[in-house]
């Protein structure tokens, strides 16, 4: 039975178990029949909605939530988590190095960039983990290729079409509401791509609403008729949903699927976004507003397991200092507001946020007071249940690979940790093999 363990629940209660039972029994009779994908999906959605009217859906109020924050462009890890005790750092970066007196000291070896006061506060409160020297073997220095590698969790030599989160949805969230994955932004991240594509992406909740034109009720019903999948296209057995549809089916299937997802998600999200207010002062930037929206959706109990947010602009080839200061300030302030907001809601213990960037930057500054594409870099993980501290080793600044830092933590170890210890998902199945776990959550 796929659905009985489709949503692993750390906190089971009787009501929830009863709902789960009703759900599985409702579909149970149909398991061996051929059932169109849309019907299966609609059943699950209706079921979830029915459950929602009585109590919150299980994933909404009691499931663990992962927020992935992409720092796009290749964040300069060396100026983010600064190895202040290392002369090699200042030798390599005479102009752009962060001045010793300004660094927010973490320990004898490292400190945070002065704009990251918000993160320093979280570290001091015991909610921030700093994972050092994260990367992968044979690092690629292309933005796009390296981003794909991080999003698909593949080896550098392999090209995958599905993302690591998409594979998690495939193995653990079949038949879930499309809002199981929510990306804030106009594009669906490659990390969400899966056998059975799910998740929705939107920059602002007001984009998710269909106004029925001038046609009134009649047009509304006909609109729904036109925007549901054709049965002939979508036929598949329940047990093999997705497998029957390589690459998510034809283009028309894809459009019909998105249309249905849009319908079932739009009302729910608009309602939550309209009802719940942010409980903290977020920076008035896309990242700040994006995290504020995530917090409101969490407060409203949207049954989302993974949120995806991004901040761009980290490709600092030229005159890096001013740009990087601004970006990190925005990052630190946004994350501090997010944590404060979640605490006020009582949801901080349910959320883990993980940052990543496609690569760090070269150790030595370049001729234009910027930095070129590099390799290993630190990443941040924060949440109410995160064990604060530093993980991994800071890479050597003198034993370099073509001018770049050498990784000591494979980024897939971080993914495996989050999957297994936070989302209660089979990490080996999602990532294709076993990676050592970190004692973070």
């Amino acid at each position, binding site marked *: 039975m796929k659905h009985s363990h489709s949503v692993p629940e750390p906190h089971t209660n009787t009501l929830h178990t009863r709902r789960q039972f009703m759900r599985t029994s409702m579909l149970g009779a149909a398991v061996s029949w051929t059932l169109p994908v849309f019907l299966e999906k609609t059943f699950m959605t209706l079921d979830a909605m029915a459950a929602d009217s009585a109590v919150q859906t299980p994933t909404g109020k009691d499931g663990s939530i992962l927020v992935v924050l992409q720092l796009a462009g290749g964040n300069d890890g060396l100026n983010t988590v600064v190895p202040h005790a290392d002369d090699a750092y200042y030798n390599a970066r005479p102009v752009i190095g962060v001045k010793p007196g300004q660094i927010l000291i973490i320990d004898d070896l490292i400190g945070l960039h002065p704009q990251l006061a918000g993160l320093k506060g979280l570290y001091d409160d015991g909610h921030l983990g700093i994972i050092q020297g994260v990367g992968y073997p044979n690092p690629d*220095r*292309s*933005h*796009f*290729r390296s981003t794909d590698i991080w999003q698909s969790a593949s080896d550098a030599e392999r090209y995958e079409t599905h993302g690591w989160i998409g594979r998690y949805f495939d193995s653990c969230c079949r038949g879930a509401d*499309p809002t199981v994955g929510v*990306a804030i932004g*106009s*594009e*669906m991240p490659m990390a969400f791509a899966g056998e059975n594509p799910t998740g*929705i*992406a*939107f*920059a*602002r909740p007001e*984009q*998710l*609403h*269909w*106004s029925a*034109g*001038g*046609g009134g009720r*009649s*047009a509304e019903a*006909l*609109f729904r*008729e*036109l*925007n549901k999948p*054709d049965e002939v296209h979508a036929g598949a057995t329940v047990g093999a949903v997705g497998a029957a549809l390589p690459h*998510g089916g034809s*283009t*028309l299937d*894809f*459009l*019909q699927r*998105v*249309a249905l*997802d*849009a319908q079932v*998600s*739009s009302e729910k999200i608009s309602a939550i976004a309209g009802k719940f207010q942010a409980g903290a002062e977020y920076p008035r930037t896309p990242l700040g507003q994006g995290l504020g929206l995530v917090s409101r959706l969490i407060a409203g109990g949207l049954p989302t397991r993974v949120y995806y947010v991004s901040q761009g602009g980290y490709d600092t*080839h*030229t005159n890096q200092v001013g740009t990087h200061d601004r970006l990190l300030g925005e990052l630190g302030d946004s994350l501090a507001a997010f944590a404060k907001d979640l605490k006020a809601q009582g949801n901080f213990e349910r959320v883990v946020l993980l940052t990543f960037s496609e690569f760090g930057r070269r150790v030595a500054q*370049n*001729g*234009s007071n*910027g930095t*070129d594409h590099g390799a290993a870099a630190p990443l941040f993980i924060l949440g109410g249940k995160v064990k604060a501290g530093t993980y991994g080793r800071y890479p050597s600044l003198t034993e370099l690979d*073509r001018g770049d830092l050498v990784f000591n933590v494979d980024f897939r170890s971080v993914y495996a940790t989050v999957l297994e210890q936070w989302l209660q998902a089979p990490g080996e199945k999602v990532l294709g093999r076993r990676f050592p776990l970190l004692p973070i959550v």
Partner: protein
Amino acid sequence: MLTPLPAHEWDPAKAAHLLNRAGFGGTPAEIEALHQAGFDTAVHRLLDAPDDSAAFPKPDWAAPQDLMEDQRMLRNLPEPERREKMQKEQMSKMQQIYGLVGWWLARMWGSPNQLREKLTLFWHGHFTTSLLKVREPFGLWQQNETLRQNALGNFGAMTKAIARDPAMISYLDTQQNHKNHPNENFARELMELFTLGIGNYTEEDIQQAARTFTCYKINPRTMSFQLADFERDDGEKKFFGRIGNFTADDVIDMILEKPACAKYIARKVWTFFAYEDPAPALVEQLAGTFRDHRYEIRPLMEEILRSAEFYSAASIRSQIKSPIQWYVQTARELDMDLPPARTAMNTLRSLGQMPFLPPNVKGWDGGKTWINASTLLMRYNLAALAVSGDPRMGRMAENGDPQMAEHGRPKPLDLAKIAPPALRADPKALVQALGFRLFQKETLTAKEAEVFLKYLDDQHGDTSDQTIRGLLNLMMSTPEFQLT
């Protein structure tokens, strides 16, 4: 693999497909004219359309600015005037951006040289450059003209021209690529994205190639290209295993010698015009044509547009319209003017494709990435706006939109022309006619026909403009309408 389409298979659906893909679509009358012309003539009309430059003159603002003089003047102004001058400058830049976007969209919409505009859009997504970094609308306008001039010309010449293009020099940091401190940004993207694709060069090739571009600079007084002799790196370079004092043009020539380059471009062109994931043999054949003609683009396009495969079931109506395609094609199909540039910018931003503002140097991924729950609903809502005779346009005219002032209020949707009274009297014929206009399918599916007729039926004989608007809105609020 690619054989020409037999002339007797030429029909209205194929003529519509040619107009949609090699251009931005057209009205049923335009499609019928292309069909009547016959296959050979139709392809020839698109490939060898007359130059349209006279109809789209250089906009008044599109003139170089002496940036050094401007800076000097600003420095010498006392504080309140300086601030005022800078604010004015900002405003005028914003107006220029509207002007730039409006100028190009109008050209896509109105040019008789449709294929050249479509290719200019393709090359803009290929040799991407963003206003966000370049900040000079004139630079982007200049680059757009360079892409247009070379759109059906020679790919090697275009690549060399783009390496010298001031907007590109600014976008990929060639201006910061110094003899003593090379910046690899342009050299990397030149090989990774513009010519070869990943895996066909080494990191060392990038570093060596970067050295040949150090002398390419922008003249800040004229915003034009200049060769800076003092930045020239005359040392020996090792590129693709060969050693010599190579110039930037030498490096580009050596790149073009690689078979991977012709394949990479041919594959990308086919994907843009026909369908995704072409068979390797098909790509080989196109790449062979491309190389045999020394990277001339016209023969490549001719082979594509004449091929039976281009008109196959795998190709026709298999592509998701890009937002720009959706926008311009909708206006052309409905025989209406484009809304003003400011409306266009807002629309295209929410749909995910702003001209001159690609998301990154890779351009737009296209295909399924155009569509998610929010962009699809946005398309539906914007369709409603398009057929409503948007009252907001009037307000914009009062607010002094520059494009409005210049051209007057755009021509709204003319429902009497789209659905004349005789047609309204026959629901089946009406549904069929509007269906062809919007989907270019000769027959609608049973479900579509049934739903659209049901809509008319629900209006109880009311065939007013309001009903027609509702029907158009319904037809456009469908997965089918997103395909071309």
